[in-house]
């Protein structure tokens, strides 16, 4: 796999050969990646793939078993206050103190951040339609996520880290979250790191995508590169064939009889040539969606999963 040529100094986040276990369960295994500054980095993978573990290691909430984590060039376990001051974080379960009112929640959190911007916090509260007097426990799940997002954003962090921000939310709250990601990155130099299993959302907003499956990094590249390097081919044979055809670069094959659909990676000419050798006609050639690519690499039909 091509490594990202981004040095630690340029990257808000860089991890090297990161391995982490929970008892006998391997959560992450030899993961290396660097997040480019000023873009949206999407981390995708199924539930339990290791996404939250990676985020917790980035935040210094876990001490890595093996490997290095560098946040803005610092170790988050040794310098938590310096690292956390420069990032905003929204956790998966939006855990906020239930007994507080929205106004109290804002006042409580502003104390932790010297760069807290009151005007911006108030603007976000209005934009998200949050009632200052409402108690956190009475907010809907979507409103609680937006309250968490307000707190993550109001000190205008260099890096916004969102763990499954829109999982379990209704369409309107999901739009608000996506809009916040878009606005954050539109502000010069800010970086967004978010994990999601909703691949159409990642396809919308991410510049760079990392896929993890069962704790291993299966793909990490700019979105354009990923889209350019994957193809879906539909082949037709003159006679039904019993076993899936062998196509160069194939990641997954589906079909039966005369028609087979293949998601492949790499040079199209190689895949075309091997189809021709087998006497098949290519009846369709398309670009797969990010979801198709993920399923081809990590789903049940995948050839190397």
């Amino acid at each position, binding site marked *: 796999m091509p490594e990202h040529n981004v040095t630690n100094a340029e990257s808000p986040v860089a991890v090297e050969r990161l391995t982490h276990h929970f008892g006998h369960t391997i959560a992450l295994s030899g993961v290396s990646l660097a997040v480019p500054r000023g*873009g*949206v980095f999407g981390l995708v993978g199924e539930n339990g793939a290791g996404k939250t573990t990676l985020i917790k290691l980035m935040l210094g909430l876990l001490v890595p078993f093996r490997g290095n984590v560098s946040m803005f060039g610092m170790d988050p376990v040794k310098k938590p206050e310096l690292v956390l001051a420069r990032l905003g974080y929204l956790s998966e379960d939006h855990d906020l103190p239930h007994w507080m009112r929205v106004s109290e929640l804002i006042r409580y959190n502003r104390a932790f951040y010297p760069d807290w911007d009151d005007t911006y916090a108030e603007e976000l509260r209005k934009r998200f339609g949050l009632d200052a007097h409402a108690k956190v426990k009475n907010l809907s799940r979507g409103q609680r996520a937006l309250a968490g997002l307000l707190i993550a954003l109001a000190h205008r962090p260099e890096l916004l880290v969102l763990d499954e921000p829109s999982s379990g939310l209704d369409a309107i709250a999901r*739009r608000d979250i*996506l*809009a916040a990601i*878009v*606005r954050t*990155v*539109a502000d010069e130099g800010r970086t967004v790191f978010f994990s999601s299993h909703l691949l*159409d959302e990642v*396809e*919308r*907003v*991410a*510049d760079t995508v990392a896929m993890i499956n069962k704790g291993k990094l299966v793909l990490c590249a700019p979105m*354009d590169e990923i*889209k350019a390097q994957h193809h*879906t081919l539909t082949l037709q044979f003159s006679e039904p064939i019993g076993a899936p055809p062998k196509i160069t670069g194939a990641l997954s094959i589906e079909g039966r009889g005369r028609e087979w659909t293949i998601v492949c990676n790499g040079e199209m000419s190689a895949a075309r040539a091997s189809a021709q050798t087998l006497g098949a006609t290519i*009846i369709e050639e*398309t*670009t*797969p*969606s990010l*979801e*198709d690519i993920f399923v081809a690499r990590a789903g049940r039909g995948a050839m190397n999963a």
Partner: protein
Amino acid sequence: MLIHLSHKNGVPLYLQIVSQVKYLVASGRLRPSDEVPPIRTLAESLLINPNTVARAYRELEHAGILVKKQGSGTFVSDAGSRLAWTERIKVLTDRIDALLAEAHQLDVPTEQVLALIKDRDRLIAAQPQQEKQNAGA
């Protein structure tokens, strides 16, 4: 400017924007010197990465369809309408390719397809007249 993005068909989002802006210009819904939305505004309304919009606009500028004016915004260029004809032909060419591919699959020869197109054209051309006659009767 109305743009619809699809996440099902796999076509990169910037290319979907490029082809839809071309189509809007070709169909006359965007006219020379019309302003297109700023990058940030379009990104926020489509909920996509601003870099994607920037890339689409760059491509459209490169193709001579959009022109950036220093400090004021991005506009449909005057050359846009001349390009519109080629775009119209291109839109039709894509449709014709799909039609021919389907005819081939169904084992219908090209001559037959041409004859069918002429038949349908005559039929469609005749229809409004029939309606007029019906209305007059």
